[in-house]
């Protein structure tokens, strides 16, 4: 038993070292610095709750947190609806494994390319003279270019859905592929129609995949700062941007305090979700 523990930790040593030095220590450092003070030029060790007092005393904080949750909720609902439909099509309507793998890969390839370039690539679509506006005008839907397509909440959500739907497709597809097809046959034999099979058999059995996808999407959106900054043209804010703005002003203690609150928020949300799913069993 002791031998197993020792050899296990030895094998996991490189992993542990990386996680300690680049995950645990940075978190501890952020917590420590969140109690420091900042002058114009440097940061000074201290034990001071001023950063937190300022954070919780400001209306901006609550608005920005609320906005962050709003982005997360809307993106979650959209990615779930789209991701579930795509996974359902791949798992139950595509009949051969070769096609399933090929189409699945088509969905995953963009994930391995640059997010920033995928954001940039919306400019010709959404810009004032972009494809969307010229199409709308030529159809007579609008008289003059719509301004809120690019650099708006709409663009932010669109980019989130564009970037992160994949994180729903993969785990949901994975769980769907493990559903015993005879269960569906049994339901059909018992007289269930397509919608009933979907609602009473497939969705309950797909819940673990949905939970894992949810964890990915919610954490990615809540921790984001670059998509919001780029797609809103710096007009909207979320918590990540609050942190990155502080960093740009070299106000590290204030950034650290916001980061601590954000981390706690994310961990609480994930902790709640993990109660519903055993990730290791689902892989």
């Amino acid at each position, binding site marked *: 038993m002791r031998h*197993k*523990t020792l050899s*296990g930790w*030895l*094998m*996991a040593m*490189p*992993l542990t070292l990386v996680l300690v030095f*680049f*995950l*645990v*220590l*940075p*978190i501890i*450092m*952020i917590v420590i610095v969140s109690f420091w003070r900042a002058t114009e030029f440097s940061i000074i060790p201290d034990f001071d709750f001023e950063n937190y007092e300022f954070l919780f005393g400001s209306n901006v904080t609550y608005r920005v947190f609320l906005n962050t949750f709003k982005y997360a909720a809307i993106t979650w609902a959209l990615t779930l609806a789209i991701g579930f*439909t*795509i996974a359902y*099509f791949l798992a139950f*309507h595509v*009949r051969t494994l070769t096609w399933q793998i090929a189409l699945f890969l*088509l969905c995953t*390839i*963009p994930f*391995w*390319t*640059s*997010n*920033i*370039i*995928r954001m*940039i*690539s*919306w*400019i*010709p*679509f959404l*810009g004032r*003279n*972009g*494809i969307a506006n010229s199409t709308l005008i030529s159809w007579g839907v609008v008289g003059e270019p719509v301004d809120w397509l690019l650099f708006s909440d709409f663009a932010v959500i669109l980019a989130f859905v*564009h970037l992160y739907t994949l994180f729903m497709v993969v785990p949901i597809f994975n769980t769907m592929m493990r559903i015993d097809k005879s269960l569906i046959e049994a339901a059909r034999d018992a007289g269930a129609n*397509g919608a009933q099979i979907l609602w009473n058999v497939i969705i309950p059995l797909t819940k673990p995949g949905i939970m894992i996808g949810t*964890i990915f999407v919610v*954490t990615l959106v809540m*921790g984001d700062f*670059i998509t919001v900054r*780029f797609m809103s043209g710096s007009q909207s804010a979320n918590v*990540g941007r609050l*942190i*990155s703005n502080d*960093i740009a002003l070299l106000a*590290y203690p204030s950034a650290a305090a916001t*980061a601590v609150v954000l*981390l706690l928020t*994310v*961990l609480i949300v*994930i902790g709640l979700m993990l109660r519903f799913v055993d990730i*290791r069993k689902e*892989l």
Partner: protein
Amino acid sequence: MEPRPRSFYILAAFFGLFLLFLYGPTITIGILSFQGPSGGLTFPMRGTSLHWFYDLFEQQAVGDIWGSFRRSFALGLMVMVTTVVVSVMGGLAFRKRFRGSGILFYLIITSLVIPSILISLGVGLIFSQSGMEVHWSTSGFGSQLTWTLPFGLLIMFAVFNRFDKSYEEAARDLGATPWQTLRHVVLPIIAPSLIGVALFGFTLSYDEFARTLLTAGSYNTLPLEIYGMTTNVTTPVLYALGTLTTLFSLLIIGVFLGFAWWSAKRKARAGSDAGKGMV
């Protein structure tokens, strides 16, 4: 085969639209990068040319694109190799279900869900406060590992969950040492999935932005360079660069997928002689 239900066609159309949504914008900037010299960031095309691609090769027109590309490529390879080795060792370790593995597992999950900017901020603060210089190959390298390792390990968990232990037992029964079992039985079986881990390691590193923002130091990686360009470059040279890096990513993905396909084929051929008979 029974006829396809009507829902199939509706869903297939939805799937097609989804693919259009995924690839449409990228293809659009691919087309727009061939804008004529007087063309802008949106349609119409004002002639076609390679003007903006030529621009990329001129040092003054844009920043240090090629230097940052070299750095990103080197860093991607470093992260890839490390991710594969560390993930395999970690995956093997977790099979032992050793004491304390639960904590390590939760650390991996934390590493996956923690907002990237926190890693950037924390690592940057540690380096600056302890007087070390941030550099893409030290602080940047470690920060990226906190993003690639969870993916590598999740793949390894999935692989080992499906691993048939009787192969190892057979090797042991034949007198193989633990190292021989690992080298000649376990590793060849999991080899195709290691290609997947390597693909994740390289591409996630090559495209990583947030975790290297404060940890790359004075020499930018390519995503940082591109991001810098978005704020001050308003010509299609941005699209030309985007198109080139996307093509490069696609090339890398193609190489990995081809390699995975080849190794799965090879495994299928070498792995079983069932049905071949004794003749």
